[in-house]
């Protein structure tokens, strides 16, 4: 895999065919395209974990509806702020919508300027070839002071890499295809695997009689 520099990024974003083009919209400022990465901004929608009287989150037991119910959607328009308090965890989405062609994949990391304030921006980190949508960002304030989050702030960086050969991607592949807002965890869709792991555990426990 080869990392894309500024010129290659621009070329990828101007590919004549829509299917081959790297789409990052809207790009409010052309300067977001840096030497080897593209700055991504914070969007306007967030998912906050509700306080609950339930014992906890077990994705192998919970339904998707259960999990969704534990999260509250919040819209913060431009010009307003969301205060992230110490040790609080929220999901956000990038302002930009990405469409990666099948020969590009990407990595997302938080910008160090925010990290030095205590804000950890984790994501699924790896973005698959052919991904379409806004990226969900997992934000945690690891510092001791509340941090104001403004929609539109440059919060993360996307570095892109070209594959040796284009991946085969079906248009509707993936659990998170085409999101425009932060997506909750879809682990309950892997219930079958959790069930199998439980079964495996039972098998192993009963081996000696």
């Amino acid at each position, binding site marked *: 895999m080869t990392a894309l520099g500024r010129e290659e990024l621009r070329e990828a974003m101007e590919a004549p065919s*829509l*299917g081959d083009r790297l*789409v990052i919209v*809207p790009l409010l400022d052309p300067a977001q395209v840096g030497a080897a990465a593209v700055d991504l901004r914070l969007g306007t929608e967030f998912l906050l974990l509700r306080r609950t009287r339930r014992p906890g989150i077990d994705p192998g037991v919970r339904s998707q509806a259960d999990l969704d119910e534990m999260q509250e959607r919040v*819209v913060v328009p*431009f*010009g307003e702020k969301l205060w992230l308090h110490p040790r609080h965890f929220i999901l956000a989405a990038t302002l930009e919508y990405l*469409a990666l062609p099948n020969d590009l994949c990407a990595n997302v990391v938080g910008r160090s300027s925010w990290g030095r304030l205590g804000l950890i921006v984790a994501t699924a980190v790896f973005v698959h070839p052919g991904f379409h949508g806004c990226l969900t960002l997992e934000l945690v304030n690891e510092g001791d002071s509340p941090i104001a989050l403004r929609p539109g702030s440059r919060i993360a960086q996307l570095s892109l890499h070209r594959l040796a050969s284009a991946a085969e991607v079906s248009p509707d592949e993936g659990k998170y295809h085409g999101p*425009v807002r932060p997506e909750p965890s879809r682990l309950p869709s892997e219930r079958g695997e959790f069930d199998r792991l439980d079964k495996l555990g039972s098998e192993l426990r009963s081996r000696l009689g």
Partner: protein
Amino acid sequence: MDGDPDDLELLLATTRQEVDALRDDRRLAPIQGSRGAALREHVLDLLGAFDHRIAETPDAGASPAVRRAFARSLRQSMVMLRGAYAALPWLAATREPTVNLGSLYLAEELATALVGSDVDLVVVPNAEAMYSTTSWPFSAVIDGTAGFTPSASRRPIVLNYPLSDGDRLLLHPLFAHEIGHASVHEHNLVSTVETGLDSSEAFSDAFSETIQAMKTFWPAASETRIIGTLRAMLRAWIEELLCDHLATEAMGPAFLLAFACFVMPLSYGEPGNQHPPATLRVRLMLEHLARRGWDPYLDSVTPGIKSWLTNVSADAAGAAPAPSFAFFRDQLADNAETLQDTTNVRVGSHCLDPAASIPAADEAAALLDASILPVGLDEPLHGRAILLGGWQSAIRRHGDRPEGLVHALADRRLQDLVGKAIEMSTVVTSWRATA
């Protein structure tokens, strides 16, 4: 009968209590920015009007008739004071939007285009299943309080949408019709049309004939009552049709498609006292779109649905259940161009021009077909063109037939993209303005 001294005491105490309770509510606290600020001022004007009325309470020495009249007036206004509680969730919605930002920005743009820039718009869900609009909701009491001067100057408009439709972006062209009501009132458009009709000899003759026919149809009514009823219904129909035409000017074919999707399952050819039959409305919208140059677009993008709606509109000429309905239908159909021209003048340069909008809608539809946010690859697309492109893509995906409209409404992903694209288009345009 009102007038017992204790009764007046009860009224005054109740009024003071309700005014204080409303003033203390945190949702009436000052608002950052302009959204909701005029509505808040309007509510405060209502409370101010009640303060003024309390201060004007006739003293114990006043005549019983004066005290009785005062009590009656206060009691009649009490319903509106209680009704002011409805404004509190409206004000809360200005702090935390209840509808997606794309739809909110679209509604605000429509308010500017149709009514003017001097408005305040609040968009809120309503448990009732219909779209509706209220302007100056408490003006009856404020304006009826002699000697009180209100401070609100911008028109507050409350736009309600059904709870079910918050994320159904493809129906949001209906916002244009609702905001049209505020435009019609602000600019006295019904009077403009009515005056034009009255100056026509053919209209006056037909009106006289209808009065005679109604005497047979409704023998118990006096001529004065018949004329009053006909005038009120005529004004109501003109207002509804003006709102349809304003929405057609502002949204182009997207309004027709949203109308067909939302209204046609609820009504067909039945005329009402407030609403013309859907068949007539569809006919006039199709004529309006053709006159503005949208026919080639409809023929290319949705020939099947256009053909269905053309058949629907043919039923507008069917038998009417009363002479009055036939009179309204025939006169308003004959004077359709007057209605269209009135709205065209009002909307002016804010109309959705086919020459500029069709290429933008085509681009938006192509991006949606490729599952790409249709905000525009080079330049931001206009929000209303994005919505039209949304319909275009939806019809391609779900079929160019009536049933396809229903499936389009169930396409959550497409409508999410349309809403986010309208939001982002507005953000980009405003961002550039800040440079």
